[in-house]
């Protein structure tokens, strides 16, 4: 018996954009996603962390087929994604949904909440009229809204309630995969906690796998079993969430972990010099080496491959694998 394929498997995804610098500038190629592979099991959550421009949101769109990769492949439940826009793709989309950062932008301001939650059911022809009404009520209850919220318009709800409405709509078609792109960043702290608790409750109840895209390592640890850290279009470290935060192996992950504002811990923070580099002007070798506090000569020449350490952690760093330390010791 062959093991069941993972819910989602992406291999060597590449997404390039062409952009022009200035009005008459030469067009340059920007690799937003540069060889990303990831794997998500049913009912599990993979957190995707990184700073703005690292390609984490583009990766989210690629695995949903909302954008077509320039290279690489995405398989959902063991089968390749159908071409975007095709009937097969639309049918597939009922099984994979997305939740965005800004719930007000994701909702239609002119439609009451109930109609918006029912919309995916209508599009995918699920149930009859009465059945849909009942389903909307169940969904609203599942996300912690009252049945009478169905008649409200988005502007009549608070930020947290809107994100609940977006979740109810995303769950309407019982998706097997939910891609959440910064779902809590726009919310207040006490509401963020509510939404994180809700996501975990919903996952337990509906069993969907989640790709949780966020810049917030704290939030990612809270909801994910595995975490992948992205820097400039590539995954630089991936591993089990608790272990990765406890003992980060890549210098960039170490910086991110040490930058988490934390009551009671003063100092001991690694302060990186400089800004995140421009994806259109990728440094040679390891893209992180110009900001890396421990970079050595090889880091500027050769890009490190993402490969497993003894304990299964994936790291793309010459030093973490000991490649770089050896020649120095020999000399």
């Amino acid at each position: 018996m062959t093991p069941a394929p993972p819910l989602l498997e992406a291999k060597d995804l590449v997404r390039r954009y062409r952009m022009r610098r200035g009005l008459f500038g030469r067009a340059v190629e920007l690799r937003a996603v540069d060889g990303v592979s990831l794997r998500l099991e049913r009912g599990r959550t993979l957190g995707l962390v990184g700073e703005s421009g690292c390609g984490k949101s583009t990766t989210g769109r690629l695995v949903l087929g909302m954008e077509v990769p320039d290279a690489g492949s995405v398989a959902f439940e063991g089968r390749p994604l159908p071409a975007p826009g095709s009937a097969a793709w639309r049918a597939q989309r009922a099984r994979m949904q997305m939740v965005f950062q800004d719930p007000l932008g994701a909702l239609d301001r002119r439609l009451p909440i109930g109609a918006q939650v029912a919309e995916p059911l209508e599009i995918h022809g699920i149930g009859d009229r009465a059945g849909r009404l009942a389903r909307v009520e169940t969904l609203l209850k599942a996300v912690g809204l009252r049945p009478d919220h169905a008649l409200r318009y988005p502007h009549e709800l608070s930020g947290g309630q809107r994100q609940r409405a977006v979740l109810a709509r995303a769950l309407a078609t019982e998706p097997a995969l939910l891609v959440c792109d910064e779902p809590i960043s726009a919310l207040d702290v006490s509401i963020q906690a509510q939404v994180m608790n809700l996501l975990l409750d919903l996952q337990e109840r509906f069993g969907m796998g989640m790709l949780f895209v966020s810049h917030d390592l704290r939030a990612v640890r809270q909801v994910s079993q595995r975490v992948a850290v992205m820097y400039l279009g590539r995954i630089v470290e991936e591993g089990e969430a608790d272990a990765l935060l406890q003992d980060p192996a890549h210098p960039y992950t170490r910086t991110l972990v040490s930058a988490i504002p934390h009551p009671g811990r003063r100092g001991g923070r690694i302060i990186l010099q400089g800004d995140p580099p421009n994806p259109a002007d990728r440094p040679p070798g390891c893209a992180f080496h110009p900001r890396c506090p421990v970079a050595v000569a090889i880091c500027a020449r050769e890009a490190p491959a993402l490969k497993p350490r003894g304990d299964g952690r994936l790291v793309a760093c010459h030093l973490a694998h000991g490649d770089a330390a050896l020649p120095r010791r020999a000399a």
Partner: protein
Amino acid sequence: MAPAPLVAIAGLTVAFDGQPALRGIDLAIAPGEAVGMVGESGCGKSVTWLAALGLLPGRAVVGGSVRIGGQELLGAPPAVLEKVRGGRIAMIFQDPASSLNPVHRIGRQIAEALTLHRGLGAAAARAEARRLLDQVGIPDAGRRLDAYPHELSGGQNQRVMIAMALAGRPELLVADEPTTALDVTIQAQILDLLAALRRETGMALVLISHDLGVVAEACERVAVMYAGRIVEEAPVERLFAAAAHPYTRGLIGALPPIEGPRRRLAAIPGGVPEPWAMPPGCAFAPRCAHRRPACERALPALIRLADAHAAACVLAAPAPAESLPA
């Protein structure tokens, strides 16, 4: 015992179109002190300082008193306010890109502040602008003087805003969510810069943030605000060790832990009350697990619990912290 405050806010109230936004703020900032103001959106943490500096629109009705070194600011003539704003108290905001003028070079914008507040001539202002850019850690400051805001990153623009704020040699810098729009690694840089500047210049800092973690690292004292009032005030260590107000405890409990076992977050149920539907008693009572009849009758006063620690909760009592049921 305490030195005379640099800024003393007393009974500050603000109402927009008859709806109260601030309902009596008392806060003193000592010279050189770093005070954090924490709360959710709409709690009044920004409005407090916009009101103090006369930056609210005309429809806002402001009451109470804001004094800096004995000088009353509320209702002060524009000439007095203009000297204080940028001169004695400077303010920076969340989004540096929209605070800077996109069509002027940054050197010119900093020099403008220097001419205004320190009366420097063109050449002296340019030299000083360069020194300030250097001080806030912009590499190659001489060349960056001629850059436009869009040529700089978000973190660098926030550094430019800080340089402009320093132009008037303020005694107090009010930073309103200065790192919220920035990436984590850049947030660490800016917090580090603010701490370094405070050591170098001795200025006081008010850091307004929704993030308890940020405030805990950068400040000595924290004021927690809820629905237009300060509900708890304490030194940072004390706040995290012995928070007395259920709202403060809720905010701390809502932070996901970064180590140890994962637990279900202690989310505060419900949302912040709207200004037109403010409960008669404690504004937090409808969300509070420890609510009792007294909470809904009258607004709880800020009770002093210990040295520099005060909370506005009927369950908080001076002496041991165990007075609040767990």
